[in-house]
């Protein structure tokens, strides 16, 4: 429970942070809230030689709408996101997910950037950002790139971020009228990591059919993923209970859960179906109310 020795730096600017990462490429790690990184270090599952604490870097925690998208600074905390008026007004999926992460301490200190960069299969954000077809802004010295969330999460604790990059922003398109989203999370107890989490974003057409849909799944594969087969089954269809069930079954076929303290595989697969149906039902109700 004692981490190995490491150096620590708290740069005042992003460029300085990027320089540190570049100068000790491969052994330097960004430190945000530390809720994921520090336990890994204590268990010696991570042994960075240098921690670059981005806590003092200005401008990394803004939440704003620009050019038809919501831009969330990587260092925004779960709590700040859950309580933000823009989010409350237009992004029920984001609000629901942020407000259900851990407990108040975790929400007051843990960051969206840390969660996404960490890519724990049980983290809630990756499924949410994929359901919303969002993207991530990654910066290194002299370079900035915008990467789609779908395809970003590669494996357990593995993303498309380069070791010399800082994730600076999360972007999601602003949803239009007749859209609604929901995040449903099955927990053993309040504030637990998800046994299964499902993020759904539904866009209804003028005819009441599902024009577009996004479905992201938490904790049932090595990397959180978008349930593409289920989305395909739903697109163009009327939002009926039978359709939702069909989508739930399709999502379960794409899931690859493993047995752990949350339950055996057959339970989790059934829960993928159940939670997918519930998320779709709720998101659709919200979309219908958002005429």
């Amino acid at each position: 429970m004692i981490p190995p020795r490491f150096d620590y730096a708290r740069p005042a600017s992003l460029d300085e942070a990027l320089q540190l990462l570049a100068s000790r490429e491969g052994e330097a790690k960004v430190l945000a809230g530390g809720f994921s990184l520090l336990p890994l270090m204590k268990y010696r599952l991570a042994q960075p030689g240098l921690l670059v604490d981005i806590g003092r870097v200005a401008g990394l925690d803004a939440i704003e709408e620009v050019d038809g998208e919501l831009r969330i600074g990587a260092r925004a905390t779960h709590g700040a996101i859950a309580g933000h008026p823009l989010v409350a007004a237009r992004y029920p999926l984001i609000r629901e997910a942020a407000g259900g992460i851990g407990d108040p301490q975790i929400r007051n200190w843990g960051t969206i950037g840390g969660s996404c960069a960490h890519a724990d299969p049980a983290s809630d954000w990756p499924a949410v950002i994929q359901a919303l077809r969002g993207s991530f802004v990654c910066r290194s010295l002299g370079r900035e790139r915008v990467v789609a969330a779908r395809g970003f999460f590669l494996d357990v604790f593995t993303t498309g971020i380069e070791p010399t990059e800082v994730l600076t922003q999360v972007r999601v398109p602003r949803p239009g009228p007749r859209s609604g989203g929901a995040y449903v999370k099955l927990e053993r107890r309040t504030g637990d990591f998800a046994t299964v989490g499902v993020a759904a974003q539904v866009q209804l057409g003028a005819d009441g059919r599902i024009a577009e849909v996004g479905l992201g799944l938490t904790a049932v594969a090595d990397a959180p993923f978008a349930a593409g087969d289920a989305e395909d089954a739903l697109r163009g269809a009327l939002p009926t209970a039978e359709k939702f069930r069909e989508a739930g079954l399709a999502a379960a076929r794409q899931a690859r859960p493993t047995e752990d303290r949350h339950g055996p595989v057959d339970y989790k697969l059934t829960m993928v179906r159940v939670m997918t149906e519930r998320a779709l039902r709720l998101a659709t109700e919200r979309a219908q109310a958002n005429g």
Partner: protein
Amino acid sequence: MSRVLGRRFVRADGLPKVTGQARYAADLVLPGMLHAAFLHAGVPRARIRRLDVSAARALPGVLAVLTQDDVPFVRFGAAVEDRTLFAHEVVRFEGEILAAVAALTPELADRACRLIEVELEALPPVLDPEAALAPGAPLVHEDWQDYSANDGIVRDGNDCGFVNIVKGDIEAGFAAADEIVEGRYVADMSHPVPIEPHAVLAQWEGDRVTVWSTTQTPFPARNGLTRTLELPESAVRVVVPHLGGGFGGKCEFHFEAHVAALARAARRPVRLVFDRRQEFTATDMARHGIIATFRTGVRRDGTIVAHEASLILDTGAYATHGPVITEIATMMAAGPYRHPNMLVEGRTVYSNRTPAGSTRAPSGPQVCWALEQHVDAIAERLGLDKLEFRLRNIVAEGDEGPTGQRFEKIGARESLLEAARLIGWGRPLPPGDGMGLAVGWWFSAPGPAGCYIKLNADGSATVVTGAQENGSGSVMGLALLAAEELGLAPERISLVYQDTDAGAFDSGSSGSQTTFNVGRAVLAASAQIRDRLLRMAADELEANPLDLELVEGVVRAKDAPGRSVVIAALARRAQDDGELITGQGNPPAPKMPDSLGGSCAGRVAFPAFAAPAFFAHAARVRVDRETGVVRVLEVAAGHEFGRVLNPIGVEGQVEGGIVHGLGIALSEGTVFRDGNQANPHLLDYKLQTAADVPAMKIAFVDAPAADGGPYGSKGVGEPPVVPTAAAVANAIAAATGVRVRHLPMTPVRVWAALAGEDA
């Protein structure tokens, strides 16, 4: 009459604890202090082939490394002496201590542990308690016959404590039954999980050692230390700074001797602080995993005519209090019901798990959970309302207990009616909701207790007691009793406690015994001081002491309150005159109720339940049938504690007990993989949190006990945790039509039961 008792009183240690001023054992630092670390076996069963500590000893900065070879070969144990300080020849559970290290830093101590060379020959672990009872099963303790044990403990191979209750004629009872209902229930091991982990700091001065420890029982801890290190009691002082909770997990003697031995070898103070993993794997007071089977005969009118129960308690690698807990379990398997004919058998079975012991109301919640589900099943078979069926069988004044005790005035029935009333038993519920009831009983533990009180010159008083405050507030509440007797404000009473050099022997914060026993000692000691003050005041007021009373800091005439003398003035004068005003109380323990005696085996500590408390909980739950998730919406509790002396304290115990009980019901359970704990951490051992707490309603029934604690009170700390899991289980069954027969009732188990699988 009472001026202080019954008042809502804020305990003296509350503010320092919530403001962070209170210091706990792990906070203490002494000059030159070293840090201790243990090397644990890490495997459940093995023969030790080689244990070489030379490389660890050679590491610079390491000042002591000890194994069993470095301490006296002494076997110890609360009921059976089956244990040594360090592993000797074999390993019996993963947390067994092979070696202990003291070094300049925790990091060095850790490294030294890793330098110890160990060769263990793994043996197949004994994990199935039923198989362990079969003839020829591998023995966890091959030398069990050589161990000494407390008188009356019946042992045989892996069973280190057989207990039974034989009452009436069980066969005749079954013959007279219209229906016979059977059931089998299994509970997993769980843990006490205090927030504060075990910590010990030891410092020698000459031949005397002072040990600051997180023990709940300073005197038993001292006994363990003096016995294992072969020291006189006068050479050992055990002090507990503030204790950060115990829930039974810190009862008895734990690591005080290891740390004292390290400090002696290193000639420096040494401190040990456990981490959470050790707290789960290397302690020895887990809540027993049990297997309970019942067979009950009833008449169509709902009368129970025969009751048979078999209990197996998995006590892990060492007996600790196991045999005594099995004895309690047999009483719990009877429940607070009239049983003309009964046969209950309990077995305490060794396995290669972390030892189980005295976690809060040991055996109570699990056995109550099993029995009360069985009772519901009987009512269902008979087509009777579950409240009505219980009311037809519950014990009342004049009835006979399982081992023959006669109940005096008790509040079993009234508690049940209160719980039912508070929850609104029988009202219509929305679909998915269900209500469940459970009743139970629990003993008070009469025992030795002593206390000194001295009156200070300003009219305040100091109570000196050996009692231990584990967080429940029972020691803090002693101030109320002294204040009531002495006519002082409770804030004027200070307490010296949990220091073996100061207070008289006390069995510690266990068995809900503090108020029950020490409270009586406080009353006796206060009475001596009160008598002296009355005589002094009588002289001054020229009155008969019988006509005077002590109220609000004065002694005054009962019929003329204006005629008074200030207690502080009397105290000051006594001091000036060279008189010490002190009181000493050590009243005899209330007697145990009569019992059947001879027809029962293995009855050691609890031939009957002294001054039993009775209670009932009712729960309303909502079950998500698709996911198996259970939400507890409401819990109502009816409790008879004889008499409630300190309402704020008792309400706190009941509320805490309910929340603790919800954890036992729904989420707390240890999972084993090949004999090792698979979830020895709070990420996967799920405690309930504030967000999970339901609405709670509590009612107290007044029924002072003749042979009780102060003012007829009974033990309070343990009963509230007993019936909650049972009430929740019955509510789940009511909501779903399905019984969950495996504790904890996790979402997966509820879901599997609903899917018709055997969870």
